[in-house]
């Protein structure tokens, strides 16, 4: 068996078992929690629905309402979260994560999806607008992620929609049309950072709609890669965090200890410097050195907020429509 605290089972992405993320917890209890891993939120959802039991899970923005609806999540007692008030309100107060006045989600890590490009192969004027993705000039050298949310974030931004929580059918059609054009240009839909990095390093792809991670790791290794978030249309942000699972078999105290450990400023420092992602503890982020943040593509949250499409949850109907459209587009329709 995986050696860990038997009273707290965390259902997480692999890699997040990194002990630096929850140092306080380990110090307090003498042992790390027990981890179970997943590779895809949908699969995780199916597994939980089928009856898999754990205490904490690590979903990202879009999934949370669905998980709530399915009765998988339990409400959070905010009084037991020491840093609750210091959390970035843009994430903390998203309506969809609340029900009956209680939140069901503690935001923890966040990142951008933004225009990322090869500075040797593209000039700054090439990447001024997100419309570049649909420009036939770049045919075959472009990549976006194989994710409905990222794809429609791009499409809505490019068609002038900044908030997708209340989109009309016409707006959706316009976005889908844009994606159809992008589809013609694409080399591939990337499904993992490694894959994208591979394509960008070889020069196969020079323009991508990508997460911070790609820019962070590649520029750190000295590759001519830049991330441009202040395009004419802006860029997009997403957030992941911890939720308390309903019918959790383990210790509630340890759940809060674990989340608190995650929210500690030392964790914020670590995730920014070592992983290149943002942390939801706005106070801790503010204290950080601006250059350090800039080096990994994260400037202050104020700057970032302007022109950003927040990947807040949409209504199930809209989301189903987007999914259906996106699959059609991918199939070439």
């Amino acid at each position: 068996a995986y050696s860990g605290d038997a009273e707290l089972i965390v259902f997480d992405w692999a890699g997040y078992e990194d002990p630096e993320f929850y140092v306080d917890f380990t110090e307090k209890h003498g042992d790390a929690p027990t981890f179970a891993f997943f590779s895809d939120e949908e699969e995780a959802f199916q597994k939980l629905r089928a009856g898999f039991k754990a205490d904490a899970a690590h979903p990202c923005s879009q999934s949370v309402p669905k998980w709530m609806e399915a009765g998988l999540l339990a409400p959070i007692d905010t009084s037991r979260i020491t840093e609750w008030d210091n959390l970035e309100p843009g994430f903390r107060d998203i309506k969809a994560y609340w029900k009956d006045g209680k939140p069901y989600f503690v935001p923890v890590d966040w990142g951008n999806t933004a225009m990322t490009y090869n500075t040797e192969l593209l000039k700054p004027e090439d990447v001024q607008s997100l419309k570049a993705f649909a420009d036939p000039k770049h045919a075959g050298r472009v990549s976006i992620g194989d994710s409905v949310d990222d794809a429609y974030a791009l499409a809505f931004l490019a068609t002038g929609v900044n908030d997708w929580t209340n989109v009309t059918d016409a707006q959706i059609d316009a976005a889908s049309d844009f994606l159809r054009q992008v589809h013609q240009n694409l080399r591939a839909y990337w499904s993992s950072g490694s894959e994208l990095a591979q394509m960008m390093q070889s020069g196969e792809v020079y323009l991508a709609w990508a997460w911070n991670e790609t820019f962070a790791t590649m520029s750190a290794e000295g590759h001519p890669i830049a991330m441009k978030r202040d395009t004419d249309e802006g860029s997009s942000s997403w957030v992941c965090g911890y939720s308390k699972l309903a019918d959790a078999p383990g210790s509630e105290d340890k759940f809060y200890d674990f989340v608190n450990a995650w929210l500690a400023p030392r964790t914020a420092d670590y995730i920014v410097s070592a992983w290149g992602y943002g942390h939801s503890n706005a106070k801790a982020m503010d204290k950080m050195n601006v250059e350090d943040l800039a080096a990994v593509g994260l400037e202050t949250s104020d700057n970032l907020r302007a022109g950003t499409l927040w990947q807040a949850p949409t209504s199930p109907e809209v989301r189903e429509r987007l999914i259906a459209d996106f699959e059609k587009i991918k199939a070439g329709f």
Partner: protein
Amino acid sequence: MVFLYAPVVLLPIFAFNSSTIIAFPLNGFTTEWFGVLWTTEALHNAVRNSMLVSVSTAIISTVLGLFAARAVARYTFPFQRGIMGLVMLPLVLPEIIIAVSLLIVLIQLGLSLSLWTVVLGHVLICTPFSIAVLSSAFRGLDPSMEEASFDLGETHWGTFRRVTFPLVMPGVISSLLITFTISLDEFIIAFFLTGTEVTLPVYIWSQLRFPAKLPSIMALGTILLALTVVLLILAEFFRRRSATRRGLDASTTEGLI
């Protein structure tokens, strides 16, 4: 053969490349990934779990395959075709469906998830392969061998142990090889049916989102490969030695499928 090994020969190259990105040009030489590998406890657990699952799966499904193949080869029973069709069904069904259904069944039975539930799932998909391989081994077996043993006073079980099993050994070996290979690389069923103990493929796949550890997995693959080669050389060495000791030509003792 070149085609079969094409990806594998690159494995060591990237295991020693200092970049986390798996692409040419190479960055520089490093053994850092082996160090990372050494210190990532979750990975060690995953390897151990995977070995446990694959070896158990290979053994269990080969044993089941043995019984099924023998039954098919020796007896005719009613609905034989129907039953065999049912056993072969997992070959046709998408794995994800098998995985979800199995999980629901297991939970309803009140079983807790563990590596053994993964083994159960893997056995389900590996047994058809095992049956396919073993029934051809049984078809080549002279039925009078078993009768001879029986005639000499052996019981059914004794006959199986002393005669049948050694004679279908080549089939057993290839069945073990195939089921081991399938189980070692399977992750959908492994993902759904595992509890907190992950197998290597599940770990690797869930790592994809933040793939900083990919090179150390390359390093792991390199080590596995090197171990296999060493084992092969050792096995060959011992086989030759024992063959010459028995005064036989090394080539005549060759077991075959």
